[in-house]
């Protein structure tokens, strides 16, 4: 394995805090990366994957953390014995790094060109003209149009995808042998993610550099990696090449990660969840770190630390693979399907319908603050939601899907159109009258960290939702009883109700938000990306819970999301939004299996898949979402559409009915 390995990491440990109980964020990590390959470090948040990457560049936050042991060899040279000055010739020159948030990773007061140039200037002996030529070359090579002009732009003048391209250009400036990409596409939309992943592959082909890809996304790893290492609680629990990993992963934790993914095949069952939480890392482990959460664990797992078992190209840290415990190995392939959960059937009763909804935000200019234009966030959306139905509203960031949700609830005022709830037109009611309907429509927000008042106990948070309703429970004792039962319903212990939000994990907080929504006894819940801030295993718990309570209370969901696999698992109908309008809507099967609108087709094609499907048509969208303040004339999508025709430039297409359940707005049909 060491014949032509570029980077060898042995027994790397980085601890945070130097008190008596330091957090062992990285605890004895070994792996090696071969020249020119992509090595993926896969794991959920907090498992130590970013800290591993920063440590090997000796960029771990100091003095907060300390590399306590280990060896990192780059081409046989031990990086940890180098002086800080020598290390500066490694960073950016032989090992470069790009980060998750291109937004904040670029210096806001330096131009893009300066940020590339300073890197060239530092590492190479070049004249000023040479530096400028090279910087333009680099921008060109990462696919930035018109690089000569763009080189004078500041980061804020570029979109998120463009910024990540600039980050890659900066990384390439040093002509590194290894590029560390720390969640390079997590903050980006799926069509932009596809562009960036393609770019990374192309750059790798051109330069032959190796990539250490850090990701939590199995599908991204499936597309990119040659080797995969799974990290859990500061340790690597499994290393395999891609084919082995995606066909025959060995560690029970890896298996759980796959099972927790929502897919269409699992619609008839609950998603597998991993019980319990990641253990505290501030203690010395005497057994397997995963033992408490593992279905296959037995006493031995709690008593003895598992060794690393290597078979060919695949290694695993689990007692099940101990040759001396051969009798246990029959357990390995024993996979448990999630418990069944029948699909809910919606009734024919239309509970909520939105017709021609428009939300325009004025743009004010000049001395008198005259309105000079409008941001057409939502520009004519028509939707209807039946009782006990789930509609997924899908689209990229900035398409207006969240504004639709807020407009339905009356949280932003509508410019035009109507929101019908039963017989009432909600957006024409007075604030007072609207209040009597507020309990029927509830919302769960994306970020469970900021959607609760940090100064209120969770009991108060939930109680407030009851008090504010006119039909709410009047007696305090009954409310307390109901809070207990709600907390139990969402899987939290009622004893904890006097705690504050910050004492709970992200998943638990989202459960509290669900309990708060349920407290109002709603008929419709608008779920605004409720799982996108959560890890896959936590997402599985929340999705299960949402489906269970839908059964129990006959709830209807408007599920706003950009995650197609969640849609596959959860939705009955899908509406695809582009620049303030719904371009295609229909039942799930028709939209996902036979997408008609070129945008839907491209969006679905951009979603990375676990299976290596060679026959898949590759549709790559060029460019990015135009500004809703100045939408293109005619069909909004024509600038990016591969099938653009003359009339697409002239007028917006009317809806074409494809079937009773499927309509699309495109001139192709």
């Amino acid at each position, binding site marked *: 394995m060491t014949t032509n390995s570029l980077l060898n990491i042995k027994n790397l440990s980085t601890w945070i805090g130097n008190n008596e109980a330091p957090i062992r964020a990285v605890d004895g990590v070994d792996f090696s990366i071969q020249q020119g390959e992509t090595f993926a470090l896969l794991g959920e948040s907090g498992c130590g994957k970013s800290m591993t990457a920063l440590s090997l560049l000796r960029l771990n936050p100091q003095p907060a953390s300390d590399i306590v042991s280990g060896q990192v060899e780059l081409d046989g040279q031990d990086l940890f014995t180098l002086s800080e000055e020598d290390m500066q010739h490694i960073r950016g*020159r032989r090992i470069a790094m790009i980060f998750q948030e291109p937004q*904040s990773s670029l210096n806001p007061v330096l131009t893009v060109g300066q940020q590339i140039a300073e890197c060239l200037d530092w590492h190479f002996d070049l004249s000023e003209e040479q530096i400028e030529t090279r910087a333009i070359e680099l921008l060109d090579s990462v696919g930035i149009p018109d690089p000569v002009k763009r080189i004078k732009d500041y980061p804020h003048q570029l979109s998120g995808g463009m910024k990540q391209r600039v980050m890659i250009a900066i990384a390439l400036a040093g002509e590194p042998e290894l590029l560390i990409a720390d969640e390079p596409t997590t903050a980006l939309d799926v069509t932009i993610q596809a562009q960036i992943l393609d770019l990374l592959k192309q750059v790798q082909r051109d330069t032959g550099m190796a990539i250490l890809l850090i990701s939590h996304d199995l599908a991204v790893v499936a597309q990119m990696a040659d080797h995969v290492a799974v990290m859990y609680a500061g340790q690597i629990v499994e290393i395999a090449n891609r084919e082995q990993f995606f066909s025959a992963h060995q560690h029970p934790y890896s298996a759980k990660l796959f099972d927790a993914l929502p897919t269409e095949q699992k619609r008839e069952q609950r998603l597998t969840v991993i019980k319990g939480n990641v253990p505290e890392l501030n203690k010395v482990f005497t057994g397997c770190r995963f033992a408490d959460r593992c279905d296959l664990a037995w006493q031995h797992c709690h008593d003895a630390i598992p060794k690393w078992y290597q078979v060919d190209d695949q290694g695993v840290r689990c007692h099940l693979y101990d040759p001396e415990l051969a009798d246990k190995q029959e357990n390995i392939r024993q996979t448990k399907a999630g418990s069944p959960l029948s699909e809910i059937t919606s009734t024919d009763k239309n509970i909520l319908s939105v017709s021609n909804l428009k939300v325009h935000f004025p743009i004010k200019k000049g*001395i008198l603050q005259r309105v000079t234009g409008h941001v057409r966030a939502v520009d004519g959306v028509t939707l209807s939601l039946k009782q006990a139905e789930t509609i997924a509203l899908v689209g990229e960031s900035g398409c207006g899907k969240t504004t639709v949700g807020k407009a339905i609830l009356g949280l932003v005022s509508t410019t035009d159109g109507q929101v019908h709830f039963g017989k009432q037109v909600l957006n024409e009611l007075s604030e007072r009258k609207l209040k009597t309907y507020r309990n029927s429509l509830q919302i769960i927000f994306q970020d469970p960290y900021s959607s609760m008042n940090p100064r209120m106990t969770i009991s108060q948070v939930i109680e407030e939702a009851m008090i504010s309703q006119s039909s709410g429970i009047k007696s305090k004792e009954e409310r307390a009883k109901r809070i207990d039962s709600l907390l139990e319903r969402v899987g939290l212990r009622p004893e904890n109700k006097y705690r504050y939000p910050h004492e709970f994990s992200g998943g638990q907080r989202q459960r509290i938000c669900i309990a708060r929504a349920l407290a109002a006894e709603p008929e419709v819940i608008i779920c605004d990306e409720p799982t996108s801030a959560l890890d896959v295993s936590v997402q599985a718990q929340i999705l299960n819970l949402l489906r269970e309570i839908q059964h129990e209370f006959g709830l209807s969901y408007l599920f706003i999301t950009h995650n197609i696999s969640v849609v596959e698992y959860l939705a009955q109908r899908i509406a695809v939004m582009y620049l303030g309008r719904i371009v295609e809507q229909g039942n799930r099967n028709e939209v996902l299996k036979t997408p008609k609108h070129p945008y839907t087709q491209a969006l679905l094609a951009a979603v990375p898949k676990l299976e290596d499907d060679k026959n898949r048509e590759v549709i790559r969208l060029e460019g990015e979402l135009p500004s809703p303040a100045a939408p293109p004339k005619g069909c909004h999508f024509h600038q990016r559409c591969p099938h653009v025709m003359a009339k697409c430039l002239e007028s917006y297409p009317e809806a074409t009915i494809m079937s009773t359940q499927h309509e699309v707005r495109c001139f192709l049909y």
Partner: protein
Amino acid sequence: MLAYIIRRILYAFPILIGVNALTFALFFMVNTPDDMARMQLGAKHITQESIDTWKQERGYDKALLWNSQASNLAEKASDTIFFDKSLSLFIFDFGQADDGRDIGQDIKTRMWPSLAIAVPTLIIGLMVNITFALLMVFFRATYVDLGGVILCVIIMSISSLFYIIGGQFLVGKLMQIVPISGYSEGMGAIKFIILPIIIGVIAGIGSGSRWYRTLFLEEASKDYVRTARAKGFSELRVLFRHVLKNAMIPILTGVVVVLPTLFMGSLILESFFGIPGLGSYTIDAIQAQDFAIVRAMVFLGSVLYIFGLVLTDLSYTLVDPRVRLDG
């Protein structure tokens, strides 16, 4: 940008009228025009007649805010002390002090000693504070940093009066390097202004350096600083090119906002060192209950402060490429 500036200037008028009204109300809540006349004429042997003459000469015989004896509505509002004395301020006609001197002329001559102290104090203070803060940040989380912060807190905790009196005693009286107080024209002023400048700088080190240190540390924890380190830059280069450049934005704009008010001088320093600047001018006027000067100085201060705020907004567009002033 032009539209923005015009709008800001229009906003300034209601603020200035409000400031004027408030100064007027506060002053005449404790004083009556009769009190002012007695103060000016001297307490002894004063007759109601002489008070009335004094008031009439200076226009203080009218109603304060509302003239109910006037014939029509326009006169009821305009034939008053407030209207008479305040409106001319907007064309920078400050009128005369109670002893008859021209306030505008006074301001013109007295602003130079104020500037002679305020400008060097600001510039030297800025350089000292930034250097000290950068030093603490470069050695962050070591004993150098800890010691620096403790020193800052000690300097902050001591009243600036102590530095003034202590400085005068030590440097002026014991060592006799410079005179204790006073002022002269031209180059001779240097020996009088050195001590106030040094004391002004020292008194500001504590709060200034500590604030700048916080700004630098905040910038140093930003993602783009991590990017800069990943590029292989040395700590010094990261600090100067990336951290300093971004942290200078709030520092510079914080300086720009006080630039216009430098004219106003320092109330305490000037009084203690006997500098004939605008700061001591204001203090003296308050003691003499000279409403004309107090009002003029408050008005001038407000105008300069508003001007400073507009200047700050404009300076943002120069140092921060993300900021644009639209309408």
